[in-house]
């Protein structure tokens, strides 16, 4: 529940609590640490690469790791634009001699590790680009809500109660020029907060969720 109270000037005396137990002193670094966000660096620890494990003298673990890699297959993963390495079958022979025709598990495991790493990097890059694109669209939508004395937010709130409206009827409801309303509506449609059905503007589920979230977190009811 948001904390709020009004002073005479209408300004809040207490800030709304957005982050639950989060302290303002950047304590969420520890939350990220607990979540185990893979990209964030951790304290130095022993590597789990099979060749390193072997060097630690953990031969049984090393064998288990190599066996595990021999089972890995990505054939059923359907992700576009990323080339996955195929499965590698490794036959483990204890005390393997090093004749010309023999397979050295350590070398193949390293090669596989390397290809797996490349794939993971490609995936991470694709995911990061997607995050940047999404955040950029979100910022544009938020800017639309705030622009022109919060016209976007007013239009969205109006659409929520009137279900389907024309630009002309919205213009009289929000008290803005037709030009401003048209621009605001076009932006809301562009960023997925509103849509056009049979010539009338309607609020989308995304637009509705945004209004609900703002109301829930701020405690301010947005009813025209």
């Amino acid at each position, binding site marked *: 529940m948001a904390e709020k109270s009004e002073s005479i000037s209408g300004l809040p005396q207490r800030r709304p609590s957005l982050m639950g137990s989060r302290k303002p002193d950047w304590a969420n670094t520890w939350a990220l640490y607990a979540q185990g966000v893979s990209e964030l660096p951790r304290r130095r620890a022993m590597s789990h690469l099979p060749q390193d494990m072997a060097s630690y003298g953990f031969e049984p673990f090393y064998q288990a790791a190599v066996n595990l890699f021999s089972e890995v297959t990505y054939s059923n993963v359907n992700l576009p634009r990323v080339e996955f390495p195929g499965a590698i079958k490794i036959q483990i022979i204890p005390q393997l001699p090093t004749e010309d025709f023999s397979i050295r598990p350590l070398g193949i495991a390293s090669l596989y590790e390397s290809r797996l790493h490349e794939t993971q990097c490609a995936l991470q890059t694709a995911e990061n680009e997607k995050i940047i694109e999404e955040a950029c669209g979100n910022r544009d939508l*938020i800017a639309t809500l705030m622009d022109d004395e919060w016209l976007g937010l007013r239009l969205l709130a109006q659409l929520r109660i009137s279900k389907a409206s024309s630009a002309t009827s919205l213009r009289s409801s929000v008290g803005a020029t037709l030009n401003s309303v048209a621009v605001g509506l076009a932006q809301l449609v562009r960023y997925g907060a509103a849509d056009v059905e049979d010539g009338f503007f309607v609020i989308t589920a995304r637009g509705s969720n945004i209004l609900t979230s703002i109301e829930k*977190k701020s405690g301010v009811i947005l009813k025209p």
Partner: protein
Amino acid sequence: MSFKKSIKQLAAYVNVTEMAILIWGPGGEGGEHYEKREKIRQAIKNTFPQADVHFSEDPELKKITPGADELTVPEQELWHLGACDVCIVLDTSKGAGEEVAHFVASRFAYKLLILTSDRYKDATSFPAALRQGKNQIFYSEEEYRSCSLTSRVMTRVEINALGKFAGLRT
């Protein structure tokens, strides 16, 4: 409460939202550019009194970084970037440029707001290509001298604040 009043109240709440803001840029030896960095920090604090604004070199940040003593400087800075809501980069020093180059490929790159002089708008260097399309704002010399660059930063922070209320990653 009237709709107009509701929006006024929401606008007031946006300005008192808790935010963690990072400012990267030239250090103390950076002269006027360091002063600009300080001005941006002060302006944010004035407009958003609940915002916790830090430079990457602030000792307080080291305390909140898990295992900081065992991490390199870029690793620590990645933690800072991961924890902040928005990171403003005053791209006027070699160090800031290196930070940008290092982190534009990270999953937290969307938090960056890179402020670059329009002299480098058509640059074809490798660092310029890295920055391209990554939340970059070009400013003119006049904008840099006046307060308009700072007001563009304020707009971005305000968007981030409302984004928190809207439950959107911004």
